[in-house]
C-alpha cells in the first residue's frame, strides 16, 4: 500500500477515535453538571433520566464520528450518501429507543407513586411504546422518501376514536398526574372541596381519590373533579384523643300532663309537685322553639304571667332567674318557687286567667340518638359542629348539663379530659348559651376552636 492509501485509512479512523475521546470527556462534564442541577431541583426522576441517557449520549458521538469519517473518506459520493442515510437512520432509531426507555421508566416511577395497579401500568407503557414506535417508523419512511400520508390518516382516525372512547378515563388519569406533580395533597391529609365533600385522603388512585368522611363513609372522587374544584388542605390531623367524641342528637316528644293553672297560687301548687321534666320543659321550651330569636327568650312562666295575667313585675322577676346558675333542676325549681312565694307574700290577691289561656303543664320526653359523627381532634370537631342539627347542639350544651346531670357541657368535658385543652374548655364553658340563638352559639364555638387550631 502507498503512503497515500494509508493516510486515506488512518484519517477516518483517527476522526472516529477523536470523537470517541471527545464523547467520553463531554459525557463526563455534561452529566456531572446535570447531576448537581437536578439534585438541587429535587426532581424524583433524575436517576431515571441520567441512567437512561448516559449510554446513548456517548453512542451519538460515535455516530457523529462515523458520519464525519465517511464524509472525509475517499468513498464514492453515492456510497457516502447511502452511508450517511444509514447513520442518520441509526440515530433516529436510537432516539426513539431512548424515548421509549425513558418514558417507560418515568411512567413506572409516577404510576407506582399514585398506586396504579400493575395492569393499567402495562397498558399505558405499551401504549406509549407503540405510539413512539409508530412515530419512529413514520419518520424513517419519510426520511427515506416513501409516501406516509395514507398511513398518517388511518392512524389519526384510529387515535381519534380511542381518545373519544376513553376521554373521561384519560381526563382522570392526566388529572391524577397533575395532582401528584402539583403535590396538592397527600395521603392522610384532611381536605375540603368547594362542592362540600370533606374528609381524610385514604388512597390516591390513577383515576379516583378516596376520602373518608367524618361520618365514616368512604367517597370516591374522580381526579378530574379534584383538579377542577377548589380544595382546602388542612394538612395532617391534630393531636388525637384516645376517646373520640361521639355526637348525639335528641328529639323531643311533648307529653301533656293534663294539669292546668289559672292563677299564680295554682301555678305554685302544681310547680311544687311537678316532675323535673316539667320544670325543664317550661324553662327551655321558648328557647328551643324560638331559637332563631335573640336575645334571651324568657321562660314559659314569665311569659304566661305577663300575657295571660298581666303581672309584669312577677314576669320580670321570673325572667330574671338565670338558668345557668343552677346545676340541677331541683335547684332551679326552688328558685322559681321562691320568687313566686315572695311575690304572693306582697300581692296575695290572685288574678285569674280567662278560659282558654290557662297554663298547661307539659312534660318533655326525649329520645337520645347517636349520630354517625365522631371527632378525634379539634379539626374534626369543628367540621362536624358546622353540620350537626340544632337539636344535637342543644343536647350537648343544655340537656346534658342540666337534665342528664353532667357538671359541664359535653364539649368542654371532652376537650378537658380527652384533649387536655383546658383553656378552650373553660372558654366554651363560660359562654352564656341562654343569651344567644343556637346558631349564634354554634358560630361562637366554631370561632373559638378555629382560633385555637390556627
Amino acid at each position: 500500500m502507498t503512503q497515500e492509501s494509508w493516510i486515506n485509512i488512518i484519517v477516518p479512523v483517527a476522526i472516529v477515535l477523536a470523537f470517541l475521546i471527545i464523547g467520553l470527556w463531554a459525557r463526563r462534564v455534561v452529566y456531572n453538571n446535570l447531576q448537581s442541577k437536578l439534585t438541587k431541583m429535587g426532581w424524583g426522576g433524575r436517576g431515571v433520566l441520567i441512567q437512561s441517557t448516559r449510554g446513548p449520549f456517548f453512542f451519538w458521538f460515535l455516530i457523529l464520528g462515523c458520519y464525519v469519517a465517511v464524509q472525509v473518506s475517499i468513498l464514492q459520493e453515492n456510497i457516502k450518501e447511502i452511508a450517511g442515510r444509514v447513520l442518520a437512520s441509526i440515530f433516529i432509531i436510537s432516539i426513539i429507543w431512548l424515548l421509549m426507555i425513558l418514558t417507560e421508566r418515568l411512567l413506572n416511577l409516577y404510576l407506582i407513586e399514585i398506586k396504579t395497579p400493575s395492569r393499567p401500568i402495562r397498558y399505558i407503557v405499551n401504549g406509549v411504546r407503540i405510539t413512539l414506535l409508530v412515530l419512529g417508523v413514520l419518520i424513517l419512511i419519510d426520511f427515506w422518501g416513501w409516501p406516509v400520508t395514507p398511513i398518517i390518516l388511518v392512524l389519526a382516525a384510529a387515535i381519534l376514536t380511542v381518545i373519544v372512547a376513553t376521554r373521561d378515563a384519560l381526563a382522570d388519569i392526566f388529572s391524577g398526574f397533575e395532582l401528584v406533580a402539583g403535590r396538592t395533597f397527600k395521603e392522610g391529609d384532611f381536605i375540603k372541596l368547594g362542592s362540600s365533600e370533606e374528609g381524610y385522603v385514604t388512597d390516591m388512585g390513577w383515576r379516583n381519590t378516596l376520602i373518608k368522611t367524618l361520618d365514616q363513609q368512604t367517597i370516591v372522587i374522580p381526579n378530574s373533579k379534584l383538579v377542577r374544584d377548589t380544595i382546602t388542605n388542612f394538612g395532617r390531623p391534630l393531636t388525637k384523643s384516645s376517646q373520640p367524641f361521639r355526637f348525639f342528637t335528641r328529639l323531643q316528644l311533648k307529653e301533656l300532663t293534663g294539669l292546668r293553672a289559672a292563677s299564680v297560687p295554682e301555678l305554685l301548687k302544681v310547680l311544687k309537685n311537678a316532675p323535673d321534666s316539667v320544670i325543664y320543659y317550661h324553662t327551655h321550651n321558648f328557647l328551643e322553639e324560638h331559637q332563631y330569636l335573640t336575645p334571651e327568650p324568657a321562660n314559659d312562666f314569665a311569659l304566661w304571667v305577663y300575657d295571660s295575667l298581666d303581672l309584669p313585675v312577677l314576669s320580670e322577676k321570673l325572667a330574671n332567674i338565670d338558668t345557668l346558675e343552677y346545676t340541677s333542676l331541683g335547684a332551679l325549681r326552688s328558685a322559681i318557687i321562691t320568687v313566686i312565694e315572695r311575690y304572693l307574700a306582697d300581692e296575695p290577691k290572685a288574678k285569674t286567667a280567662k278560659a282558654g289561656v290557662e297554663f298547661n303543664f307539659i312534660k318533655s320526653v326525649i329520645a337520645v340518638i347517636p349520630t354517625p359523627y365522631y371527632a378525634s381532634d379539634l379539626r374534626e370537631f369543628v367540621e362536624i359542629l358546622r353540620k350537626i342539627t340544632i337539636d344535637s347542639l342543644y343536647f350537648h350544651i343544655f340537656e346534658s348539663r342540666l337534665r342528664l346531670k353532667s357538671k359541664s357541657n359535653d364539649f368542654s368535658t371532652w376537650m378537658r379530659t380527652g384533649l387536655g385543652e383546658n383553656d378552650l374548655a373553660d372558654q366554651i364553658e363560660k359562654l352564656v348559651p341562654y343569651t344567644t340563638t343556637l346558631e349564634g352559639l354554634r358560630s361562637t364555638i366554631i370561632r373559638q376552636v378555629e382560633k385555637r387550631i390556627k
Partner: protein
Amino acid sequence: MTDISINEQHFQTKIDDYAPVVGKNTIDELKMLGRHLSGKVIQNINSTYSGGGVAEILNRMMPLLNQLGVDARWDVIQGNNDFFDITKKFHNALQGQSEQVSDDELALFIEVSHQNMDRLKLVGDILFIHDPQPIIFIEKKPEYGRQWVWRCHIDVSRPDSRIWEFIKQFVVRYDAAIFSAPNFAQQLPIRQFMISPSIDPLSEKNRELSRGQIDAVLNKYGLDAEKPLVVQISRFDRLKDPIGVIDAFEMAQKSSDCQLVLAGGTATDDPECASVLSEVRERAGSNPDIKILLIPPESDLEINALQRAATVIFQKSLREGFGLTISEALWKGKPVVASAVGGIPLQIKNKLTGLLCYSVEGAAYALRQLLANPDYARKLGDNGREHVRQHFLITRHVRDYLLLFISLGKKEEVIYL
C-alpha cells in the same frame, strides 16, 4: 279491606325531596327512627280515604312512612248516612257546639261500630285510631292486645259534657292519646301527647310559585298587583268573622290605600254558609277595594297564589281548631294578624312571629302597623317562616309519630336509642 286510593302526586313526593327544605340531617334522623320500627305494622283506622283534614294528612304521610321503612297501613270504617250524621254530631259536640244526640243514636253508633269491628281485620302491632268515629275498636284490645293510640284531631278543650263522657269511657282504655294543642288535653288516666298538625311544603297549596303564576291569579280576579293586598282565606262561616275582617279593613283603609280579598268555599254540610256569604257581600257593599271570592275546594294553586301575593294575611277567627291556614301563611313569609284563639297562639308569638288581636279595633291597629312598616312586617314574616320550618312541616309531624310509636310502652323520660 278497601283498596287505598292515594293521590298519585303524594307517591311522587320522595322523603329526600324535603332535604332542601329542612336539611339532610333531619331526613337522616327520620330514616334512623324508621329503622327502629322495622318489622312493626302501624295500622291506621279512620272514617274516610278522601275529604277532610285527617284523610289529607294520612294521604301525604303514609307514602313517607313507607319510604322510611315503616309498614304503615290504612283502613277505613264503613257506615250509612245515619251513622255519619251521628258522628258529625259527635264532632260538633266535642268542639263545644250544642247537639242533641238521642240514646237510640248512641245505640246505632255502637251497633255500626261493632259491624266494622267484625268486618275489619286487625293486623297492626300499633293500632292508630283517628277521631271519634272508630273509637269503639278499643273493645278489641282484651282479645287482640298490642298497643293502642287514639289520635284526636279536633278541639276538645270545651266539649259537650254528655258526649265527652260517652267518648271518654273508650278513650281511657287506650294506651295513649294524642291532641293537637296543650289546652285540648283532658284529665285522663292514660298518657297524653301533644302532636301538632302540619303543612306540606311541597304540596300545591304551599310550593313555591313563579311571579307569572301569581300574576295570572291576580289578573283572573281583577286584583291590582301594585296595591297592598290584605287576604283572609277561610270558608264563609260566622266563626271566621268575615264581617269583623271587613270592619277592621275599612278602619285601616282610612290611612292606607289597600285592597281586601275574602276567599273561601262553602261547606256542603253547613247550611249557614250561603246566608253568611250573602251577609258578607251585603256588608262589603260597593267598596271597590273589597273582593269576595267563592272558590272551589280544590283550588289549592289559587289559594297559594293569593297568599303569596298578599301584603298582610288575616285570620280573625272567633273560634278555631288548630288553624293551619296560619302556618300556610307564615310559610310564605307573610306577616299575619290573627285572633288569639284555638291553636293560633302556638303558631304566632305576639310581635315575634305575627300579631295577635282580640278585637276588631286590635285587628285594624295591627293592620295599620304592618302596612306602614314594611321592614317590621318583613321581619315578622321571616321569623314566622322559620318557626313553621322548625315546628309545623310534615317532616316534624312524621318525626313525632315515629318517636311516639318508639316510646310506647317505655316509661322513661329519657329514651336512649
